[in-house]
């Protein structure tokens, strides 16, 4: 009964006209950035982070969340019609989605993608409603040692899942921690690594770092290539999948939803991991795996359901523990902090309107997305024809504006340009930015909890292994760190490792 009462309270918040408007803006922008290659949800969310300041916390966070799950829907459109992933979680949809489009089945591919996303998104919301309050009540018992160990685990999982060398990913995570510690020490108020610059006293802003590493660097990389687009020009008809399509897709959608939701909850996991895992699972379970890569609808339905379910699941660690499991959630944490809110075990009890309002808005957002992505598909197809030589300069303009508006300070524009250049070279040399950004956000929290736990335990390191949750997190982190040294384990890692980028 409690859940129903809470959901009703949530809808009371979400159905306020201003919140409906923000939700619509969020899912619309999310679909837009999902459709447009070169700009992902991370760039869009960091660009719009300053705008959330002008409204209530509910409105701002509803919009930011809408961008995230909206981009999961939009990304599939570009993958299916152009064979270029609109954002990282849709990479795998290109494989069979574009083949289906080439065979004249773009409609069912888009349809099953949107409907599968809707089903998975709705399931993950129901699960979020049921799991989050329970986990939050358990998380109240967490001490600094548990938090520190959980953050270590989150960083290790992300570095484990990052494409390429794990040493490089771990180095990036360490650099992220160092960057996060720039500014005044939270305990002693001593300035650290500020080089006498007053602008660095409060640390480096998350927005310029993310906009530089993901927005600008992505544009710089894209301008190097002549991007050829193989757009399906035929009129898109019969968006609703037929009986056979549904029969083939029901299992993959169900499995993708469950798999995606659980992978979304894991620290360091996320929508990208979920979509790849779902594709691999469907191919393995299929009686005719040879159809995969040649237009199998299961190869679209499963991953699309998985990435949307993961997007919902990822809210759980943020809302209940205050730990962002991925870069997108780190940005959402930034939005909470801007409004003076601290996500964590007490959020649900202290701010029930906010928590349940966000959850309820996601139901509304999912329905909006279904309308935006099925009847209005033609509009997005037109947008795909926008030339990149016009789009890229405009993206650069908006990154500059977004960064400046976040602080009204030109120094942040320097930081953004600097990180844009660093991000470009990082990608060229095979260093992924995702571990750096997550560590940048978690660094100060990790340091704070580590120092607190050492002070509380009077320097006894056993505090990290005597507490079962902390010990389990550290043991798992250790397995993931040592594992790649074993050849069989390394091969498995290479199979699941992926680009967590844009």
């Amino acid at each position, binding site marked *: 009964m409690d859940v129903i009462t809470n959901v009703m309270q949530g809808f009371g918040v979400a159905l306020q006209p201003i919140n409906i408007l923000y939700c619509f803006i969020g899912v619309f922008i999310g679909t837009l950035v999902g459709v447009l290659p070169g700009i992902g949800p991370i760039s869009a969310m960091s660009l719009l982070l300053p705008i959330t300041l002008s409204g209530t916390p509910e409105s701002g966070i509803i919009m930011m969340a809408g961008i995230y799950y909206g981009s999961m829907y939009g990304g599939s459109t570009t993958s299916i019609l152009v064979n270029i992933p609109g954002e990282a979680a849709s990479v795998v949809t290109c494989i069979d989605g574009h083949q289906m489009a080439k065979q004249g089945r773009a409609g069912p591919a888009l349809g099953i993608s949107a409907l599968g996303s809707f089903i998975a998104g709705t399931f993950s919301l129901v699960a979020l409603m049921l799991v989050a309050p329970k986990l939050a009540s358990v998380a109240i018992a967490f001490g600094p040692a548990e938090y520190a160990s959980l953050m270590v685990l989150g960083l290790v999982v992300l570095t484990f899942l990052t494409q390429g060398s794990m040493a490089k990913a771990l180095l990036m995570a360490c650099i992220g921690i160092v960057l996060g510690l720039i500014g005044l020490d939270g305990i002693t108020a001593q300035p650290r690594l500020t080089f006498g610059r007053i602008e660095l006293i409060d640390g480096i802003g998350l927005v310029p770092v993310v906009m530089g590493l993901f927005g*600008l660097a992505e544009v710089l990389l894209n301008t190097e290539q002549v991007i050829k687009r193989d757009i399906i020009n035929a009129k898109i008809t019969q968006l609703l999948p037929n009986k056979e399509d549904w029969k083939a897709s029901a299992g993959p959608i169900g499995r993708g939803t469950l798999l995606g939701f659980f992978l979304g909850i894991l620290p360091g996991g996320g929508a990208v991991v979920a979509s790849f895992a779902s594709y691999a699972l469907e191919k393995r379970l299929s009686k005719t795996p040879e159809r995969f890569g040649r237009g199998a609808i299961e190869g679209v339905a499963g991953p699309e359901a998985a990435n949307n379910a993961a997007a919902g699941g990822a809210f759980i660690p943020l809302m209940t523990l205050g730990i962002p499991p991925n870069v997108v959630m780190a940005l959402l944490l930034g939005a909470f902090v801007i409004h003076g809110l601290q996500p964590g075990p007490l959020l649900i009890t202290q701010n029930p309107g906010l928590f349940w309002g966000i959850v309820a808005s996601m139901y509304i957002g999912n329905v909006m997305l279904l309308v935006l992505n099925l009847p209005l598909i033609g509009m997005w197809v037109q947008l795909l024809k926008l030339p990149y030589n*016009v789009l890229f300069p405009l993206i650069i303009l908006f990154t500059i504006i977004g960064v400046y508006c976040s602080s009204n300070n030109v120094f942040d524009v*320097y930081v953004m340009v600097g990180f844009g250049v660093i991000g470009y070279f990082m990608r060229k040399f095979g260093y992924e930015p995702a571990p750096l950004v997550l560590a940048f956000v978690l660094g100060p929290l990790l340091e704070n909890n580590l120092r607190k736990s050492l002070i509380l335990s009077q320097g006894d390191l056993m505090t990290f292994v005597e507490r079962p949750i902390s010990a389990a997190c550290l043991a798992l982190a250790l397995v993931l760190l040592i594992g790649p040294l074993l050849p069989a384990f390394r091969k498995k890692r290479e199979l699941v490792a992926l680009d967590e980028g844009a």
Partner: protein
Amino acid sequence: MTTPSRPAFRLDNSEFWTGILGLALGIFVIRAGLHLKLGSINDPGSGYVLFYTGILMCLFAASIIVAAVTEGGPTFASRWDGARWSKPVVIIAALVVYSVALDQLGFLISTIPLLLLLLRAIDPVRWTLAVPLAVLAPLGVWWVLKRGLLIQLPSGIFEIG
């Protein structure tokens, strides 16, 4: 199946030099941590986490260097094989100049030329589209921010905008 022979180490191995850069950064962080005071394990100081993070950075960088020496790695030139490297160079140079000019000249005077340059430099947009877009987009943004959101963009020494 033939076993591939171990590649000879080349001085232009990009993996090696990025590892060296990581090592240098790690040493810098260790020094910064020591300078800030480590404190004790009972009461960690401001440099405690920095110091140990620096040590980890050195370890990871060393492992990258060892892998580069023993397994080889792509050269700097090969990283840009087939890429139009001049495009990002132009954009980076334009953005550096823009960053310096933004505070001095103001948003409108510095952004209009930047946008025009980008529109012509990436994959040239025809002048008849590039000029109006380069003028109208910054003007539109400036108007929305100033009038709608009451955000003041830099107006520079000429106080335009």
